[in-house]
């Protein structure tokens, strides 16, 4: 009644196919997407 939950890859992550530095270049990961189709 009092709390709504809106929505952490540990099991199947780490594939490395997703690099953040490649828009900002100076104030670097939150806005990345996982590109592992199996995760």
């Amino acid at each position, binding site marked *: *009644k*009092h*709390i*709504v*939950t*809106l*929505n*952490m*890859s*540990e099991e*199947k*992550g*780490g*594939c*490395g*196919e*997703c*690099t*953040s*530095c*490649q*828009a*900002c*270049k*100076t*104030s*670097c*990961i*939150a*806005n*990345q*997407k*996982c*590109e*592992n189709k199996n*995760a």
Partner: protein
Amino acid sequence: MIHQYKMNGYNIVLDVYSASVHVTDDLAYDAIHLLDEGKSVDEARKELAEMYKDASAEDIDDTFSDIQELKDNGKLFTEDIYEKAAGYLKKQTTVVKALCLLVAHTCNLNCSYCFASQGKFKGDEGLMTFETAKRAIDFLVENSGNRRNLEVDFFGGEPLVNFDVCKKTVEYARSIEKEHNKNFRFTLTTNGVNVTDEVIEWANKECYNVVLSLDGRKEVNDRFRVNRAGQGSYDRIVPNFQKFVKARGDKAYYMRGTFSHYNTDFTKDIFHMADDLGFTELSMEPVVTDGKSPSTLTEEDLPVLYEQYEILAKDMLRREKDGKPITFYHYMIDLEHGPCVYKRVSGCGSGTEYMAVTAWGDLYPCHQFVNDPEYKLGNVFDGVDRTDLVDTFKECNVYSRPECKKCWARMYCAGGCSANALHATGDIKGVYEYGCKLFRKRMECALMMKVAEAEMAQEQENEAE
């Protein structure tokens, strides 16, 4: 660990280690706060009854029952179970998957705030030869293990000063990607001066993303972004960028601006680019300086910047409602399919997965370390000889920085930028605290937008019924 804050009329609770985002009523918000302070359920229940005299015993019971249910489901007050991921990363053999190719150590603009000192990186001017670029591509393929997606950014200086080498490099990479089972993703970062029809056609065919440098309003852009004769670049680059973006269709691009002490009202620059120039994919970054420049952001600027980030978030929600959304790079959060925990712990991969290549083929941990002799890793012809440095960068993660221990945003920033840390504290394992403060504010705004968007979606669903 949790983080609670109120923004735009919402009570928001982030559970750090599950990345769960909760929206609560006042009763639950204060109950969670009391428990987070270390109060027992009985003590918290008593205090809550004092605080909310109108609340029924049933209401208070329900609140604690909700909290307990979330705890039981691993969505609230979860423990940190990810330190082992940092240990795993330390032992793992890393592969290189991205290169920043500095194809031109020179520039046709003369921006005084440029961290790369007008493309020369405090060294000599020079252009990368195709032979060096070709060798860099081979180095990447040879050192990428079984990674399929490989990234190359054409950077400088101004890469289009050496456009011919950019074209030949892509042509070469495309000619070998199938036999090596690789997928090259090229990006281009440009100041727009040399953007021609030929460049547009090439970039729209070959580049996965383009980053276009523009600081916003004409007077803001032309304060720093001037040519060697001191003339502003706005009138020349804006039409080029508009043509570029129009031709780009639905392919990715970002207008990338820099704000400084001189334009702490940077939302006006973002809105100028959106409303007056027609750009929708936007990124505005705080200036990086040596701390001595008058453009350096100050502690006094912080409240202004915080307010600006909130203004931006609220305005973006308004635009969404009006059906004309814009994108702000730092507000792009995916709560369902974000980066995996290994990525969240290890960060950008500088010095391990990501390296910068100078025009002469020297390797550095990233574009911000170039020409610092202490950080030269090797070169693309002979490979990496400073494996000790690679190991040091491998250890640069959210668990190696004591300052990050108590930070709620640690699983979103991964410990921050090592180059900024070095420049601010003299240690790549330090933290650039000013950047942290801005980052946390941006995350609060981004999460608030997610809450508001969920509410909007719910309202639309209700209307449809």
